[in-house]
């Protein structure tokens, strides 16, 4: 045990001596938490729309005003032909073109229905699908009010058409703000980077510089060496996590709705799993460059598949399976549940079980491979 203490003291000395690493450990959480939620915002505003109005009636004017007043669209022009409208999309000036055919008002009043044409630039997938659906909902709203505008002939009493009105409430994130969704996930990203990269690089550095040779001819046992590497980064990870929670509260006013000890319990187990992952990579690599690339490859996949940006539910079945096989997915899920929904341990114990499983499997693999290679 004494030896472990001396190893730990040496590791901490080295960590605190490396100014860049130290600066990164404090700045990365703050900067990421401050910049990313604003930049990685999926809310689409300022959709550029062009109107191709062949009707020039009061109805078509009404529709155009309605779209303009919704706040999501900005007008970029009134092209005179379909061809001109398409050109606006081709040059990238317009995201959407709404074509209102001639006879729009007449057909609506006489026949009660009329088609309009929406042309969407689908290069930016999110913007096009959201822009298109925003426009459709504005049209639907316009639709529902049409009969009010049409005067009933001969003062006949008409019953309002029956319809279902939908009013929705957003639970756990009342204003459906994107940052509430992103900020907890970024906390996870931080722990992932520290756990996955730092350990792998640190151990491989000992190999690269050759210090591991000198260590191997001492009575230091393998488990002491490994624990000596894992414990400092576990502690560093927990400090960064705390720093992240503080930034989350100070900058965004998000305070975990669930219990903080539960959150820390999950973070602790998750870090053990990720440290095992870093250790595993270090057993495969001989240089820091190799370790960096291998870790980057996996962490990239972990993050993109984890539901960090996109919903796992909308992935195809096979992708969902892969997603469930990464520890990041489970931890992001849990952090969002605890921070936003206030879930207690009783609700998410299965996720804890999964994370413990990951921790055991990854660490066992790493130690097994470490034994084999040396």
């Amino acid at each position, binding site marked *: 045990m*004494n*030896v472990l203490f*001396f*190893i730990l003291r*040496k590791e901490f*000395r*080295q960590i605190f*001596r*490396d100014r860049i690493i130290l600066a990164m450990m404090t700045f990365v959480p703050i900067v990421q938490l401050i910049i990313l939620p604003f930049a990685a915002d999926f809310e689409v505003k300022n959709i550029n729309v062009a109107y191709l109005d062949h009707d020039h009636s009061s109805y078509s004017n009404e529709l155009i005003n309605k779209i303009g007043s919704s706040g999501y669209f900005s007008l970029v022009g009134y092209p005179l032909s379909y061809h001109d409208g398409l050109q606006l999309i081709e040059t990238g000036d317009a995201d959407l073109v709404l074509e209102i055919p001639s006879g729009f008002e007449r057909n609506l009043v006489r026949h009660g229905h009329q088609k309009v044409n929406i042309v969407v630039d689908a290069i930016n997938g999110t913007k096009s699908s959201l822009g298109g659906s925003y426009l459709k909902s504005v049209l639907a709203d316009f639709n529902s009010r049409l009969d009010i505008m049409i005067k009933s002939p001969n003062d006949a009493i008409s019953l309002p058409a029956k319809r279902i009105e939908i009013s929705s409430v957003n639970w756990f994130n009342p204003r459906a703000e994107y940052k509430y969704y992103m900020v907890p996930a970024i906390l996870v990203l931080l722990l992932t980077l520290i756990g996955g990269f730092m350990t792998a690089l640190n151990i491989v550095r000992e190999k690269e*510089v*050759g*210090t591991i*040779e*000198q*260590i*191997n*001819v*001492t*009575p*230091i046992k393998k488990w002491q060496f490994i624990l000596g590497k894992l414990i400092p980064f576990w502690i560093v990870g927990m400090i960064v996590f705390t720093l992240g929670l503080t930034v989350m509260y100070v900058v965004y006013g998000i305070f975990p709705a669930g219990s903080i000890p539960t959150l820390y319990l999950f973070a602790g187990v998750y870090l053990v799993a990720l440290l095992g992952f870093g250790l595993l990579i270090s057993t495969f690599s001989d240089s820091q460059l190799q370790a960096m690339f291998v870790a980057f490859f996996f962490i990239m996949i972990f993050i993109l598949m984890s539901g960090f940006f996109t919903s796992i539910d909308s992935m195809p079945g096979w992708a969902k399976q892969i997603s469930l096989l990464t520890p990041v997915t489970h931890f992001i899920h849990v952090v969002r549940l605890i921070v936003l929904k206030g879930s207690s341990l009783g609700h998410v114990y299965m996720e804890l079980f999964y994370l413990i499983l990951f921790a055991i499997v990854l660490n066992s693999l790493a130690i097994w491979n470490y034994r084999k290679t040396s």
Partner: protein
Amino acid sequence: MSDVQVNSLTKTFEKGSIQAVNDVSFSVEKGELFGLIGPDGAGKTTLFRMLTTLLLPDSGSATVNGMDIVKDYREIRRRVGYMPGKFSLYQDLTIEENLHFFATVFNTTIEENYNLIKDIYVQIEPFKKRRAGKLSGGMKQKLALCCALIHKPTVLFLDEPTTGVDVVSRKEFWDMLKSLKQQGITILVSTPYMDEANLCDRIALIQNGEIMSINTPENIVKSFPNTLYAAKAKNIYLLLKRLEADEEVESCYAFGEYLHFTVKTDGNENDLLNAIAERHPLDELELKKIKPTIEDAFIRLMHENTIKVTADGE
């Protein structure tokens, strides 16, 4: 009893295609300063890594302090000191911290064995707050030696300790080894420098993973079978070509500013040199008889080995 006993140790790399150490056997007595002399890639480091339990041999066995390098590796690690050829201490820790760390992992303190490292440590002590990465080559060597000695090892393995170190530091280093030897520590040192061979008690000449000869430096020089001559001319390359083509000359190779050569039939020295001078009347020709050095012995053994290998191959 001998402190290090090596029996037919063999190690191959790349699935047997590279023969790093081939059937090597030798023994080192307690308190002996034993040198492994050989060029780069001769297998010196591999041999050391096996003896310090960092590598497992393919076959053969060895004992250090009477303990098996495979079975008793834990105990060996407690007792030996190893200084790798490449500086392998923590560059971001200071001299003091490095030394302290290695003392503590061996469950000892700097004070306890200070007398052992004192002579060396006082030279670097003024810089003890400096990071190891910022030290000069010679100081790094001294620190590495201190760290390898801090737990009072019984056997010290030094892998090319003087490679890349200036002449003065090299001399100092060898003086330190001598004083350590007097304290009863068995020292195995490898070096590619032939001039350092004379400073060892006994040396093993190693080439291509095989030991060619083990003896005291004097005996190795004495065992040189022929008379050795040195030659020099204004156009030394032409002289080399001509001597190589000469029927009478057995072997000829460049050695510093001279050419060294031996002849097939030794006779009267003056007649022989006169005959050669007559056959090769070059500008500023200079011929003389010289005493062979370890390097001459090494080159000779190396040639014999290659001839043997080609003969085996046929």
